[in-house]
């Protein structure tokens, strides 16, 4: 490693030219996004999403949806007459990188709005930055309930639900369709989400149906490809129910291997994130298992507020990217819809004038905006109120993958922790009549 490289002579000049070019481009106009109150020529939106790593199974569909919807908005003349432009940044390298990129987006690119992020860690790190840099930020996909339960922010808002309603509704559904289960095993990824989601599920289960035996708590390594140990354990223990909040490649592998070893015949699976895996695993996943979608996201939603809107969204996405939209697509659509509604509300409040950052942020508080399936309201604490849809798998000849039937759409208020309460405490106050009062299940219509 000693400096003997003669080649250094040759490349130094080139290296210097390269370096100065790099430095030059980095120093392109910095400073503030726009003169407060002046109408910008273009609306720039920074979007943090996974473009690399395992979570790109969510990040890439999210980006595709954003591109599709931004194009649609621009084709229709923009928001309040201003064209919108997305600037994507990769969450793949981790929190340090995202925090640096957030600052670059605000201070160098001068974005007017930021969508952050898929990773809960990134959201936890970005929400305080939103307040510090005073840039309205929509938390578009991350799940952790900690953000608005532990803190209050003036510039950060979540345009979807959080882990508590997503997991609680899966439990309520299970209690409704299989009320007499006696034992449960859990196979979750060994990281924050896997632990957190099991915590929520267990706390609520112990309140609503005390005495269920937890046969096994299995936390295979995040990114594991082989689940033979876990499947063997569960086959031997014979629990009535198997819970897995895994996602991506982990869930795909678990479903395929459990299917090969007939585990699905012995236990009912509850998989609150499996909607995003259905099209990949296809009919390896048998009928009769419980699947969720982190919200009321399902391209065959049984009772959308505007069937035409959902159909247009799903069909356009399918035509463009050759797959049906999965939940991150819906989450992105919600963030885009919230952005549009928020800006229009702020512009209207100024009777056509352009809002400042603070005025734009204030517009998101209490904002109600349409989602592809229903509508979402942002509460005063910044948390979005989003309905939840859980269903049971069914094999239909119309699709090469399982579809959902016996779908229950849970109204957001009924499953979301009230403002000012912590999920861990609120879940302990639930009562069994919650299960009795659930909405009617709706069957698959071909």
């Amino acid at each position, binding site marked *: *490693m*000693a*400096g*003997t*490289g*003669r*080649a*250094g*002579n*040759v*490349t*130094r000049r080139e*290296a210097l030219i390269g*370096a100065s070019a*790099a*430095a030059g*481009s*980095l*120093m392109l106009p*910095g*400073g503030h996004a726009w003169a407060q109150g002046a109408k910008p020529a273009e609306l720039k939106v920074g979007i943090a999403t996974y*473009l*690399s790593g395992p979570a790109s199974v969510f990040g890439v569909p999210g980006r595709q949806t954003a591109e599709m919807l931004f194009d649609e908005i621009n084709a229709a003349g923009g928001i309040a007459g201003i064209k919108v432009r997305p*600037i*994507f*940044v*990769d969450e793949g*390298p*981790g*929190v*340090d*990188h995202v*925090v*640096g*990129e957030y*600052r*670059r987006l*605000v*201070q*160098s690119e001068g974005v007017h709005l930021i969508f952050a992020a898929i990773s*809960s*860690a990134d959201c*936890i*790190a970005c929400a*305080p930055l939103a307040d*510090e840099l005073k840039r309205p930020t929509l938390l578009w996909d991350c799940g*952790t309930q*900690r953000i608005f339960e532990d803190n209050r922010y003036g510039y950060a808002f979540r345009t979807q639900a959080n882990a508590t309603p997503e997991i609680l509704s899966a439990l309520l559904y299970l209690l409704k369709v299989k009320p007499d289960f006696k034992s449960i095993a859990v196979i979750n990824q*060994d*990281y*924050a*989400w896997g*632990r*957190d989601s099991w915590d929520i599920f267990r706390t609520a289960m112990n309140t609503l149906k005390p005495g269920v035996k937890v046969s096994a708590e299995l936390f295979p390594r*995040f990114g594991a490809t082989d689940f033979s140990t876990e499947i063997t354990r569960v086959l031997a223990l014979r629990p009535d129910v198997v819970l897995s909040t895994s996602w991506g490649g982990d869930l795909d592998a678990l479903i395929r291997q459990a299917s090969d070893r007939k585990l699905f015949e012995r236990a009912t699976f509850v998989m609150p994130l499996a909607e995003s895996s259905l099209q990949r695993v296809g009919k390896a996943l048998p009928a009769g298992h419980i699947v969720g979608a982190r919200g009321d996201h399902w391209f065959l939603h049984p009772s959308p507020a505007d069937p035409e809107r959902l159909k247009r969204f799903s069909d356009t996405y399918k035509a463009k990217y050759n797959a049906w939209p999965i939940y991150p697509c819906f989450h992105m659509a919600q963030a885009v819809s919230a952005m549009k509604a928020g800006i229009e509300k702020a512009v209207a409040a100024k009777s056509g004038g352009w809002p400042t950052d603070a005025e734009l942020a204030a517009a998101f508080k209490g904002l109600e905006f349409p989602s592809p399936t229903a509508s979402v309201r942002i509460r005063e604490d910044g948390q979005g109120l989003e309905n939840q849809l859980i269903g049971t798998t069914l094999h239909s000849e119309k699709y090469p993958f399982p579809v959902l039937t016996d779908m229950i759409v849970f109204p957001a208020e009924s499953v979301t922790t009230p403002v000012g309460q912590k999920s861990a405490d609120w879940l302990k106050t639930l009562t069994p009549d919650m299960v009795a009062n659930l909405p009617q299940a709706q069957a698959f219509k071909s």
Partner: protein
Amino acid sequence: MTRRSETLLALAGAVLILVLAYAVPWLRFVLTIALAKGLAVLGILLLLRAGQVSFGHALYLALAAYTVAFGAVVVPEALLLLPAAALLAGVVGLLIGLFVVRYREIFFGMLNLALSMVFYSVLEKFYALTHGADGIRLPPVTVLGRPLAGESGEWTVLGMALVLALVCGALVRVALASPLGEALAGIKTRETRLDFMGVSPKRVLLAAYVASAVMAGLAGAIIALTTRHVTPALSYWTTSGELVFIAILGGAGSVIGPFLGAAAYELTRVYAAATFANAWQLVLGLVLLGVIVFAPGGIWGMITSRRRAA
């Protein structure tokens, strides 16, 4: 290169960093992280002098970062947290060092790697305490009683990183020229000779190891104060690999090398990510490959070979 010109170069670099941080506000964050990583790599450089590569120094980085995150709840004073974190990293470095300095080369590297991954697992598994992969948000921190936040906070942390970089750089420069530094080089060439001279190679390596742990600790504390959010990824093996990589990129010939390498690495990464959100890893890889192929002495090697030729 003479001591005087090296000092001048270091001071010029410091001024350049301040000018850049002033002219381009968002680079303050990137440059602070680069200086912190440069500090950690300075420690790696000491070990490299002895021919030993540690693939586990992220352990001390993460240890110090979590010390700051947990410590800030009790004592939110950065000027106490910083030395406390470095001290703890040093103590743990001493304990682990007593064990790992008995090994050389691949065994040394792998043992360090294993221990840092053990710490990674601890951070992930003690979920109730550490929140696992979601990490911990730092509570508000003060400097001399004044809150460390906003633009002044960014300047303060950058200033601290810069001072630490200059002080540690100077100390390592002196240490490398001292008998200790010569003994380290002796471990690389032929260790038995040291024994014959009555110098304990283990003790020499231990001293370097503890110093490197302290510097990695300082780096971790600076990173925690800058990002204000710590996650177990700090102790993952890729972070250690990054440090070794920066050492090679910057060049092992001088104490300025690590900082050149860290700045080049961070700026390339940020620039590539800004230009090609989809394929920035490819760009980063190609740039770094180019440096390795065409300048085996790293960036520092490019500068010195040019001077020699001139």
